[in-house]
């Protein structure tokens, strides 16, 4: 390798400097709000969780006090358990429905465009729409769900059912996104592989299990990860539908953080709950990824 002459080296260094200047000046209008509103708050939140910040008065360092008082509060423990309950119920149902809907639409049978619009539409509307519509449909006395099921289940007003009522609305809201992810994953599969399998005598179920599902592995990981993250943070529909009630039975961690932490301006305490939820979310998704990595199917 021949060493570059000094002049050329200097020119190279100058080009590099110029490109760094250009690169960062183009990226700055994004990077500035990105750092200030997304990255820094996460670090700041961890700091605040060790203080007794409450807007009025100067914050004091209180060590682990917020964490200890949160963990020793039965309402917080219940909110976290409820959150896990939502994750365990909602994530598998949404994943399965999203997959089945995508397999269906991907057949391109007559009406598949209508089905595609219908399966995705509920994902584009705002949380209060989801909440209000399902509060009405799940009404114990006049709701259409009880009418068609010939039941009178107090979906949102009993401590046994409230989290199920909220979960139903959540499934309706979230499935569209997972459906679209699976649909995109299916469309990337090379049709020739399936043709070859068919010629070799593989029936539809066999090629689904042996070819399609394994090829959708990355989509599965992505879809389940995204759905887990979003369900760990479940808030809006809870707040609109039940505000966590009755008797805390449908409260999620975010809902508790909002009503007890921010509502009463115990911001250090709220931050501690936020950090715990973050850790739980990370642990949850990591466990899932580890399980999925070893699995062969």
């Amino acid at each position, binding site marked *: 390798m021949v060493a570059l002459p000094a002049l050329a080296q200097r020119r190279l260094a100058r080009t590099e400097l110029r490109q760094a200047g250009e690169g960062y000046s*183009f990226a700055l209008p994004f990077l500035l709000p990105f750092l200030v509103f997304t990255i820094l708050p996460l670090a700041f*939140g961890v700091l605040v969780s060790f203080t007794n910040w409450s807007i009025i008065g100067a914050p004091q360092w209180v060590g682990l006090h917020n964490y200890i008082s949160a963990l020793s509060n039965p309402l917080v423990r219940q909110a976290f358990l409820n959150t896990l309950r939502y994750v365990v119920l909602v994530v598998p149902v949404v994943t399965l429905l999203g997959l089945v809907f995508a397999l269906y639409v991907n*057949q391109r049978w007559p009406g598949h465009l209508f089905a595609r619009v219908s399966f995705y539409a509920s994902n*584009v509307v705002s949380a209060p729409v989801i909440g209000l519509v399902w509060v009405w449909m799940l009404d114990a006395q006049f709701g259409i769900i009880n009418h068609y099921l010939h039941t009178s289940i107090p979906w949102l007003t009993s401590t046994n059912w409230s989290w199920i009522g909220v979960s139903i609305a959540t499934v309706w809201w979230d499935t569209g996104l997972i459906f679209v992810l699976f649909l995109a994953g299916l469309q990337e599969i090379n049709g020739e592989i399936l043709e070859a399998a068919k010629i070799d005598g593989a029936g539809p179920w066999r090629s689904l299990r042996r070819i399609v599902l394994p090829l959708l592995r990355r989509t599965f990981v992505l879809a389940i990860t995204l759905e887990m993250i979003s369900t760990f943070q479940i808030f809006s529909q809870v707040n609109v539908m039940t505000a966590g009630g009755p008797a805390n039975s449908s409260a999620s961690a975010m809902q508790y953080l909002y009503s007890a932490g921010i509502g009463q301006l115990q911001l250090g305490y*709220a931050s501690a709950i936020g950090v715990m939820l973050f850790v739980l979310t990370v642990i949850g998704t990591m466990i899932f990824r580890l399980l999925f990595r070893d699995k062969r199917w």
Partner: protein
Amino acid sequence: MVRVLPGRRRRRLAWFPGWLIGMLAAILWAAPFLWMLSTSFKPTAQILTNNIHWLPQTFVLDNYRFVFRGPVSRWMLNSLITSFLGTLLGVMVGALAGYALARIQFRGRNAVFGLILASIMIPANLAVVPLYIAFLKIGLVNSYAAITLPLVANAVSVYIFRQFFLGLPDELEDAARIDGAGRWQMFIHVALPLARGPITASTIILFTANWNNYLWPLLITFSQNMYTLPVGVAQYSSASGNYTQINIYGPSMAAATLLCIPSLAIFLALQRYFIEGVARAGVKG
């Protein structure tokens, strides 16, 4: 194309039961919207009844009149202004950053892009408490700027632009460079005019993110006349809202209809971009 079930040629009607079940599911999935719309035009007597009719027996506008007696038009205005501002700023900064990350070789580029990608996996709600404290401290509350600013830097939008600009052939810019054009001119005159697809996709993503946002405006607006439409409409919830009365369902369905019209209209008009944009960002992200 994947066709899992037997082809039409082999067994003519084998696909029919599957098709039927799927169609019923699709209709069922859309039914809550129809029920919402229908309820919003019904008089109270036809709402609080066990006599189910999918179409209103008498068609009334009372529920909408009730809703418009409140500050709902002000909330719509607030939502339109903040969503418009947030989308405009978001698309601009996203296009610039996406361009830099795709077409300018600079030190630290991969680290910056990695950080942006990783942030998609960070739950946004966890930044809410510290952001709230910071905004309270500097007194930036109850204003359009306070509602909009945290949503400007949208990682998915940067991702969409970067993927698009990566695919542009170098020759296009080389010609401009030989003519003496600087980076800025190449971006404005060469790259951006070609980027209609990613501009549409990120406009849709940013607009719906802004229009639908609920938790942040709920925290940062303190007076009714600064509420955005989702925060205002949620007031019709019997659990957490302020309008508590016996028959809230008519007005609440009217309010919900008003809130979902813009998102659904944009979705129906541009659904190809919607689905492709979301899918592209998701699958390859």
